Structure formats: structure tokens, C-alpha cells
């Protein structure tokens, strides 16, 4: 009855480590880490039960940032939800925009111009660079490095944000994609500065890796820590670099081939052990692939309109129906499920938040590890609370 090798029903959450607590071993210590804690990446709480320093139980608690994004969007027009998607995963507004625009385009049957597709790929890959760079910095911060990797990451991130700002007018809340294209046309000068950035990024990654990848302390802290089996990863809906680090080569850019990704050659790095080090390294390698995609896209980008002037933005009333559409965001599968009843605002609007779903197996990964590792494991999951809580 279980040919796919997936975990049977017995592998449900629950403490898998039996904690010994008698007179010799003493009591268990329950520690509420968060919501105000330096390493929970925002207002996130982990109720951790410790046996010494070993985690025997861990329950994530969130919702502190909950604003019912979905309810707000159901009361807003289709266009009016676009700026709210910026605020889900506020590191990756461009990919959130794209995913939402793609969902509405599929719902309303709107075609996208060729130049806009290229610009979307460029921006999505820049977002991936930005997100993964920051993640490596945050991960090392969680591992106790005094901010140096993080500051180097932010130094490079700033360059990407400058590009976003000069194109969309805002550094993080870009609100850039529109149904049927993009809002502003990148100038030749913008494309040139993007090329310059992409050309310099490989050098930065080399320096970054010299600082981190060969570091014995980093290896000792991450290798063999927080292992995730491919079966559990797939069953738990883990997506993105985390899934690939667990050894499953599933990349929506390849599987769905949305946008113009089939036109570009790139490889999908996969890990073997599914531990924290693999999650870190897969992201580093993905950045190198992203640089390749960016080179191709910036070389091939055609001239033409960026947005179909007839494409309806305001007062869009898609035909009644529903759509689920997803893209490969930097954190995983970011999808939008929309139901239209023919009205000016969606009847049902749902975000599939990769950060939240990747957290499902946090306890499984942390059990039996030390409390210091649980922080690093959380860092390697790569969550943004704006998206977890919505």
C-alpha cells in the first residue's frame, strides 16, 4: 500500500527522542525562545523542551505578524492586491509580484510581451541572488559570526536594491509587475548596470566562499546537523533550495517551465545529505547558476513593448473560474490560488507561503540536536515572518 516509499502513518509528529529524566538526569527545561529573540528572524517563537542542551520537543508558534492578508485582498481589486504581495516576503517582492501577476494573467487570459518576460526572469534571478546572499549572512549570524558575513551580504544586496530602486522606484516594496507585463521599461543604462553587477557578482561569491565555505567551524557546525530525508521533505511539501538540498531535484523553473525559463540553460544543484551545510551550499551553487541565467537573459533581451497598453489593470473582472499558479521563488514554491466570481475583486485569494510550509518539519529536523543547532537549522530554513504570518 506504500509503493512511493513515503513515510507510513506512524511517522507523524511527536517526540521521537525519549528523554530520560529521573533523579540522576534531572528535569527537562522548557524554554520559550521568542517572540523577542535575536535569532528567530522576526517575531517567531519556538517552545523548546531541553534535556541538558538537547532538544527533545520543539513547537513553533507564530501569527504575531498576522494581518489576514487574504481577507484584505478579497476586499481589494485585483490591482490593489499587487502592492500587498510585496509585503509577504519582503526580501523577494519581485518574485511575489510575478507569481501573483502570473496567476491573474492565467485567470484573465492575458498574454505577456516578450521583453516583459525577459525582464521578469532578470528580476526574479536578481531576487534569488539577493535572497540567498542574505540568507548565507543570516545563517552565519545565527552561527555566531559577529556580523561580518552579514555585512558583506548586505553590501552586495545594496547594489541589487539600487537596481530595483532605479527601475521600480522602491527598494523593497517594488510593486513592479503588472497583468500582461511590467510597469516600467528598463533603460539601456539600467541594463548596463545590471550587466556590470552580474559580472562582478561571481568575484564577490568567490570572496564570500573563501570566508565561509572552507571554514572548519562552519563545517563542524552544519555538517550532519538537521538532516532531512527526501521522503519526508516531499511529503511535508518542502520546496525550494531546502527540498533540493535533501536530494530531490525538483525545480519549478524546470518542471513547469513558466515564463521564458525553458529558453535558458541552467543546472539544478542538489545535495546528498540534506543537512544544514547542504542547504547552505545548494544556495551558493544556485546563485552561480542564477548568474548564468542573468548573463543569458541580459544578452538576449529583445526590444519591444514592456506592457500591452490594452491590458486591463484597473477594474479587471476576470471570467468566473479559479486558478492555482506557482513559481519557483527563492524560498520555494510561491503560489497563488484565485477564485473569481466575475466581480472586480477575487472571491477567494490564497497565498501558498513557502516559508510557512517549510517550517512544518522544523521539529523533525531539530529533535536530538542541541539548542545552538536548532537556531542554525531555523536559519537554514529561510523564513520571513511577513510571509509565514501573512
Amino acid at each position, binding site marked *: 500500500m506504500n509503493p512511493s516509499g513515503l513515510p507510513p502513518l506512524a511517522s507523524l509528529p511527536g517526540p521521537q527522542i525519549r528523554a530520560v529524566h529521573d533523579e540522576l538526569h534531572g528535569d527537562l527545561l522548557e524554554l520559550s525562545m521568542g517572540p523577542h529573540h535575536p535569532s528567530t528572524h522576526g517575531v517567531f517563537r519556538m517552545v523548546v523542551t531541553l534535556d541538558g542542551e538537547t532538544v527533545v520537543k520543539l513547537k513553533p508558534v507564530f501569527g504575531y505578524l498576522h494581518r489576514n492578508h487574504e481577507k484584505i485582498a478579497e476586499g481589494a481589486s485585483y*490591482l490593489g492586491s499587487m502592492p500587498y504581495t510585496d509585503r509577504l516576503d519582503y526580501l523577494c517582492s519581485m518574485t511575489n509580484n510575478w507569481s501573483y501577476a502570473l496567476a491573474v494573467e492565467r485567470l484573465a487570459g492575458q498574454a505577456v510581451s516578450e521583453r516583459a518576460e525577459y525582464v521578469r526572469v532578470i528580476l526574479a534571478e536578481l531576487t534569488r541572488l539577493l535572497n540567498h546572499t542574505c540568507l548565507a549572512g543570516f545563517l552565519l549570524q545565527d552561527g555566531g559570526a559577529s556580523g561580518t558575513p552579514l555585512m558583506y551580504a548586505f553590501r552586495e544586496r545594496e547594489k541589487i536594491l*539600487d537596481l530595483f530602486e532605479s527601475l521600480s522606484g522602491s527598494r523593497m516594496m517594488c510593486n513592479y509587475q503588472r497583468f500582461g507585463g511590467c510597469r516600467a521599461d528598463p533603460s539601456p543604462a539600467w541594463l548596463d548596470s545590471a550587466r556590470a553587477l552580474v559580472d562582478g557578482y561571481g568575484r564577490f561569491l568567490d570572496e564570500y566562499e573563501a570566508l565561509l565555505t572552507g571554514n572548519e567551524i562552519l563545517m563542524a557546525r552544519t555538517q550532519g546537523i538537521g538532516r532531512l530525508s527526501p521522503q519526508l521533505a516531499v511529503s511535508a511539501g518542502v520546496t525550494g533550495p531546502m527540498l533540493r538540498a535533501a536530494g530531490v531535484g525538483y525545480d519549478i523553473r524546470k518542471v513547469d517551465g513558466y515564463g521564458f525559463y525553458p529558453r535558458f540553460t541552467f543546472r539544478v544543484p542538489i545535495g546528498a545529505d540534506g543537512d544544514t551545510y547542504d542547504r547552505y551550499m545548494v544556495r551558493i551553487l544556485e546563485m552561480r547558476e542564477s548568474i548564468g541565467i542573468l548573463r543569458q537573459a541580459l544578452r538576449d533581451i529583445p526590444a519591444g513593448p514592456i506592457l500591452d497598453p490594452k491590458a486591463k489593470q484597473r477594474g479587471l473582472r476576470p471570467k468566473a473560474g479559479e486558478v492555482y499558479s506557482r513559481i519557483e521563488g527563492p524560498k520555494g514554491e510561491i503560489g497563488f490560488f484565485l477564485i473569481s466570481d466575475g466581480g472586480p475583486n477575487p472571491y477567494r485569494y490564497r497565498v501558498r507561503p513557502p516559508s510557512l510550509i517549510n517550517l512544518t518539519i522544523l521539529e523533525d529536523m531539530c529533535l536530538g540536536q542541541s539548542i545552538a543547532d536548532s537556531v542554525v537549522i531555523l536559519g537554514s530554513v529561510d523564513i520571513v515572518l511577513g510571509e509565514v504570518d501573512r
Partner: protein
Amino acid sequence: MLGTGLLQGLAVTARNFLGSFYDRRRFVTTQYPEQRTALPEAYRNFPFLVCESADDPMGTLRCVACQICEKECPPQCIYIEKSKDKKPDANGKPQIYPAVFDIDTAVCMSCQICVEVCPFDAIKMDQVFELAATDRFGALLMDRHALAKPNSYFQSIHPTEAGEVDSRLLAARLAAEEKARTAAAAKAAPKPAAPKPPAAPSAEAPKPSPPLA
């Protein structure tokens, strides 16, 4: 292994330490109040209302209180009350004007949707970001007097966009004048059965602007 990775890391930080003394790329901080980075032209912060003349901002607002932006604003930070009377606009046409036009910048999320939906090019994004105030409520709730800024200011912060807007408005005005002339000529002509000229945009409602490039 055996600490070589650690030494490699130490070499990287040492390079950055030394580099920070002579290499601008390794010393990226801008000392903000004294030094300022140039804002990109596309930079946007909060909306403002465009008026034609700096001397009479209230009299020359482009806004005709159509309330589209109020309806479209996702966080609903715009509040408009229409005027009871009409004032002549830049073309001399009598128009409704906003008796109240408030934007609560504490609520505004700088999304620029009001700009995109405005068919009259009357609301644009400002670049002033130093808005810190001690009064949490009053100072962040901007009325139409605080919001009105002349077209020349718009030209200075977004030259490309303003150039396009101005040429579009000029074309619309010329077309309107042309239409008026044709209409006058048609009225003057003895035969009223003359075919109507091809639909020209009327002065009251220029064509909705294409999304901003």
C-alpha cells in the same frame, strides 16, 4: 582542513580591513545627513497633487475630484470631497475641484497605484522622504494645501515622466482646440448635415494615460 579554512577566512577579513582605507568598494557607508546619495529618477515616496502655477496652487490643481484614486487606493488613505461649485481649469473649462483632498501618509504605502489610475495626470509621486514629525497625527495627515506642488517641481524630480505628461497634455489641448474650431466652423457652415469629425478626445476627459514608462 586543519585550520587552513580559518586562515583563509582571516585573510579575507584582513583584506577587507585594509581595503576599507583606500578602496571605495570596501567602504560603502554614506554618512547620511552630510552626504547624500542621488535619488534615482524613478524613486517614489508619497503622492502629491500637481498644480499648474506655484502662485495659485489651489486655483490651478489638475485634480477634478473624480475620486478614482480614492476608490483604487489599496490602504484607503485618500479622502476626497467634491466641490459644490466649479472653477475654470488650465484650459479655461469650468471643472469640479476637490474641496477636501487628504492623504494620510501614516497609512499610505507608496504603491503608486493612485498615479497609475489617474486619468488627469493630477497626482504624482514625490521624493521628499524626510517627513519625521513630532506630531504623530496632524503632521502626517496632509491636506490639499500641503499636497499641492507646481508642475515645475514635478519637472525637476521626474523629468522624463513629466516631459511625457506635458507633451500628452499639450496634444490633448491642441486636439480640443482643433475640435472646438471645427465645431465652430461646422456651426457657421450653412449645412448642418456635415459629417462629424473623427472622435477627438474631449477637453474634459483626456484619454486615460497609458501606464507610465
